[in-house]
């Protein structure tokens, strides 16, 4: 079974703050994804990656950077956090375009 972990699980920062969310998967999946979940919007794709060093732009990328350092690790960076980025963030992984497996989520609050 896919194992996807995220850290931190909860984060509070202030407007203008610098935040890094981490995701690690241990199933040798090549694809990894970052989503945000907000009431009324379901899950929306921020960035995704086909493999180490690769980055693809998702559907709501503004205000976010991402980096895939290894097969296992995918990071989401908020360099100037804003209250509109308060959300529940999920990481997921998959082998090619098959089933996606999700991490437990990170709840981010920007004050």
């Amino acid at each position, binding site marked *: 079974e896919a194992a996807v972990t995220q850290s931190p699980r909860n984060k509070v920062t202030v407007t203008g703050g610098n935040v890094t969310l981490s995701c690690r998967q241990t199933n040798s999946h090549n694809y990894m994804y970052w989503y945000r979940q907000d009431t009324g919007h379901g*899950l*929306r*794709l921020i960035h995704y990656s086909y493999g180490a060093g690769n980055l693809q732009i998702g559907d709501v990328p503004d205000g976010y950077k991402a980096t895939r350092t290894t097969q296992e690790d995918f990071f989401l960076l908020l360099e100037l956090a804003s209250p509109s980025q308060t959300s529940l963030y999920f990481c997921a992984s998959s082998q090619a375009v098959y089933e*996606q497996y999700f991490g437990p989520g990170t709840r981010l609050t920007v004050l």
Partner: protein
Amino acid sequence: GDKVKQSPSALSLQEGTNSALRCNFSIAATTVQWFLQNPRGSLINLFYLVPGTKENGRLKSAFDSKESYSTLHIRDAQLEDSGTYFCAAENYNQGKLIFGQGTKLSIKP
């Protein structure tokens, strides 16, 4: 407009009854995935579908790519089936999913 539209948005059922959830697509969906977000917030894979049907215990799902819809049937609903069900479609091998807004299902004893 919504590329993946789920219905109903919310549903309340008595334990032991059956239900059907639906997703309609306005994109050329090639595969569909169904997930359950349980009350703790975890997203659990239910089905990965190419056109056709799959069954797993009390759950059965179908995907018709020509008519652009997918369904999820829950038989003999149990309390642990409560949560929000999401469908998501992959658009023509783009390597990413587009999610619907979810159906919130409440099972009452």
